[in-house]
């Protein structure tokens, strides 16, 4: 009995539904992935602090347990929804779809999805985001992109975080970048420190660029939709 069905098709369908919703609302959505402790939540808190005034940012927080991260985000004044995956090691598109119903993000805003700290499993699950952003801190090894290639292959941007610590470490930043490009020749790379703010401007500019593009697409799609409604009304008249 031939079946011939993609195993992840169900997740991909739900991811596409999330993507359509983001697109309809002109939302720029990012899926932040990393190992535990790379500084994703600190990066988000600092990003909201610097950008939140001009660009509304809401957050979906994924962790196996606790709502600690969502509370850290809410302390900035931004809206955050915590998803506990229980025994699960990653967020899937279905969980994110439900979280979006609770989050109810505004049109023309930014949604940050902080995935479960895990450099393996989240790589396989599309959530409907515009880009996966992999955060790697300089206190980890330069060979992380080679040890966990699927994640670095799935990401469009790598953020090298905690760069303020570089003078104190025997960490070769050029080597980690070369390793990331070995598994993904097209990956973009930004070096920054969320704690000192060094390099944050380039990251904020990257987000602004994506948000502007998401808005532009929504605006470009809107007149067509109105045109359809007018045509229907005209046909009825």
């Amino acid at each position: 009995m031939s079946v011939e069905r993609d195993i992840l098709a169900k997740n991909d369908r739900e991811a596409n539904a999330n993507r359509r919703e983001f697109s309809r609302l002109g939302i720029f959505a990012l899926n932040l992935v990393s190992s535990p402790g790379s500084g994703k939540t600190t990066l988000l808190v600092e990003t909201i602090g610097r950008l939140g005034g001009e660009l509304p940012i809401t957050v979906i927080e994924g962790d196996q347990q606790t709502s600690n991260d969502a509370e850290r985000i809410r302390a900035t004044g931004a809206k955050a929804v915590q998803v506990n995956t229980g025994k699960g090691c990653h967020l899937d598109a279905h969980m994110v779809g439900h979280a979006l119903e609770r989050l109810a993000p505004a049109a023309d805003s930014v949604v940050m999805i902080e995935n479960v700290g895990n450099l393996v499993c989240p790589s396989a699950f599309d959530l409907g985001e515009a880009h996966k952003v992999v955060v790697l801190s300089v206190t980890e090894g330069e060979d992380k992109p080679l040890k966990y290639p699927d994640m670095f292959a799935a990401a469009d941007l790598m953020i090298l975080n905690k760069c303020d610590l570089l003078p104190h470490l025997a960490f070769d930043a050029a080597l980690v970048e070369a390793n990331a490009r070995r598994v993904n020749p097209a990956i973009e790379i930004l070096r920054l420190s969320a704690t000192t703010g060094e390099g944050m401007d380039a990251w904020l500019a990257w987000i602004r660029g994506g948000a502007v593009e998401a808005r532009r697409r929504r605006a470009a799609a809107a007149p067509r939709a109105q045109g359809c409604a007018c045509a229907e009304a005209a046909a009825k008249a």
Partner: protein
Amino acid sequence: MHEMSIAESVRGIVEETAAREGFARVMEVRLEIGRLAAVEPEALRFCFDAVMRGGIAEGAVLAIDETPGTAWCFGCSDSVPVAMRGEPCPRCGGGQLQVTGGTGMRVKDLLGN
């Protein structure tokens, strides 16, 4: 262990197919898993047995066909086989490779009655 989620998705596809075909039992399930699909076949076997327990495919044989990884080498301007991501081109030794195949995961067929 996202292999557990993968196994649960397989169970969903197997159950839907069996219901459509009117099968009372599924004896064998065959998957095609790309070598670069981020799935460990042995972990998937373990999860498959656990997830199928108590269902229509309990005790079913799991057959896994592994498909080779392929990539486009920018140095050779050609498609080359790759065993793992991040490895250099097997022909020219260059590091500029874009994976093009062997990332898929499919339920190929099943045997039921």
